[in-house]
């Protein structure tokens, strides 16, 4: 049963990684626009960002 000393912390650690990742996505606003975000993934590295960069320069 000694293996438990390794396994339990490992399981908890993995679970915590998932929880923290979820909290991060929530905080980053990734669920604010569920519909739009699916399309944004298909946008090319496009004009919008170029414009944005131009402005920053």
């Amino acid at each position, binding site marked *: *049963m000694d293996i438990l000393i390794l396994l339990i912390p490992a399981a*908890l650690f993995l*679970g915590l990684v998932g929880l923290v990742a979820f*909290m991060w996505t929530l905080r980053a606003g990734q669920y604010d626009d569920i519909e739009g975000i699916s399309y944004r993934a298909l946008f090319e590295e*496009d004009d919008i960002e170029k*414009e944005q960069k131009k402005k920053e320069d």
Partner: protein
Amino acid sequence: MHQASQEVFKIEHFVVEGLHCPKCIREIEGTLAENKKIKNARVNLSTQRLAVEWSQETDNALARSEEIITALDNIGFKAFPFKNANISAEEDRVSKSLLRAMAVSGFAAANVMLLSVAVWGGSDMNESTRSLMHWVSAAIVLPAAAYAGQPFFRSALAALKGKRLNMDVPISLAVILTCAMSLFETIIQSDQTYYDAVVMLLFFLLIGRYLDQKMRSHARSVAHNLMSYKVSKASLLHDDGTTEDVAVEMLVPGQIIQVIAGDKIPIDGKVVSGVSDIDTSIVTGETIPQKTKTDDIVYAGTINLNGTLSIEITATTGNTLLDEIIVLMETAEQGRAKYVKLADRAAQIYAPLVHFLAAATFLGWLVLSNIGWELSLINAIAVLIITCPCALGLAVPVVQVVASSRLFKAGILVKAADGLERLAEIDTVIFDKTGTLTLGQPELANGDDETVSDFNLELAASVAKTSSHPLCRALIVACHDRDLPTIATTSEIREEPGMGLEATINGLEVRLGNREWCGINANYLPNNRYSELWLKAKGATPVLFCFKDRMRSDAHDVVQWFIRRKMKVILLSGDRKDVVEEAAEELGISRYKHSCKPQDKIEIIERMKDNGDKILMVGDGINDAPALSAADVSISPSSAAEISQNAADFIFQSQKLDTIVRAYQVSVSSRQLVFTNFALAAIYNIIAVPFAAAGMLTPLIAAIAMSMSSIVVTGNALRLNFEKLYKSHDA
């Protein structure tokens, strides 16, 4: 706090109409990215809104938003400043905190279940290993429960402070006591702990709550978008004759604004120049436009039909007609008995009963056996756990979620949390006429008259076709119905504000407009029932066109549907006697009252409520707003005045009224399902409690029972999706 308010100031939200595709996102964001003043513009496709972050602060907020609106207009989108950013931010915060609590309880439930299953299955596990498992579980569950239980603890505390009982009281008690007992068992190294039950209970309940909140806030967000479509700026007239667009909130008494034909009058005031007809139906319910000339008083919300008016502002916020209505609404709301939600009513029976059973178990074991007070207490807590409020706590929210989403698809927005429950109890329906039973659009009423021949109609429509006046448009619709073409005019069509139109058609001089314009004696064919237009061709007898407000196509069917179900149907209108009588007869409503002021409507409702009637009010005008708040439950069409939409519990978006019947049907079925759910939870308790009281409960049984009861309750709620709903015939 300070930082937050600053952020709100720098970010502005807009509602964008017709936002539906990825191309829209790119076009809008691409166009706005070219503007140097904008730091970041982001479209939200789910909420149909655009958030604009400015790079620096400017004083003139209106000019700034105007810039965005024009920019979007140029690429074909209509944008409106979003008015309820604060409310929607608050709702967002609530749903995010629920989601966080749900994530934490879900994480804890999954991990603790791993350990619990090992304990339940590990018959050869030695004592120290089991103890280790329990301590690890405690380390996970105690902080998780303290965090994820907060929504329940807070609500329970608030209820207790108000000397009430709600569902969250037994839930909180179960969570706290189960944690305490499990910790005690862990310390004395016993083999039975209920850590998994605690987090599972929280996890299930939070899923239900989150979905409930999400569904409702989605419906409210759509409702807020609808409200933002209404413009709230005025065109201020300067001394040198130029005009400037300003926000209505910035106006002060004494200033003069200009309102062009077809626009809504933004504020109460006195006409200083100009003549026009004004559609006051939203304020008074009267369908015949009012003639307005210099020195007449006009009210915010009414529509200027023809002719430009200059209006001197007499009252600003605090003194307008709208403010008087708001005062009436507030009084009406105070008179409204506080509705106790079904779940809370169930809790008021359930909580004392369960606590009594637990106490009886404790005393029973203590007095009748020799197992000692610790074990007696543990058995008592076991009763509290097994009567798990899980099924009861889920009974209402899951039904609400299914019902709201079903209604949402049918075009009905459920704004109030307990709206469905209140709707299910009604026995009286009160309708407003103008804009509710009718569409607020005129249609030709005397098309069968001999004088309204194809030739005359054609002639009138030819003159009318350039005008935006509602009566002129009704003429053109009537013309289309008879498949008549309109004659091309060779001469220019001249419009005289507040009077009518003039044109030369086929060499014939023709006038279309009011009596005066056509030079007709007031005694010739007198009419004070319909809106009228006269057609006068040179040398011919003048022709009268009458118009009445167009009924919604299924108004009759819907009214009869309620009457067939033995409900009282009443018509309360601010319109004049003849018109209301005719409408009531057409719809088969025997009880009606005309010329109602807002106070009259409230009085009638209050009186009926005192007689024990449960009233559904359906209305749209500003004059209906107090009645909407006074009634037990209320519905408004999405075309209603903003204040009425705010007051209403439901909003329907269709041109038809059958949505009201559907909302009622869904509310009745939901109520039945909630009761079945309560019954299921009760049956389950009756079976399980004796085992717990006898001390025969194990953590494994508790876990299975809790999951099973939750699944049964949820499955039962889903049956609502198969319900057949009413549809009016010509649908």
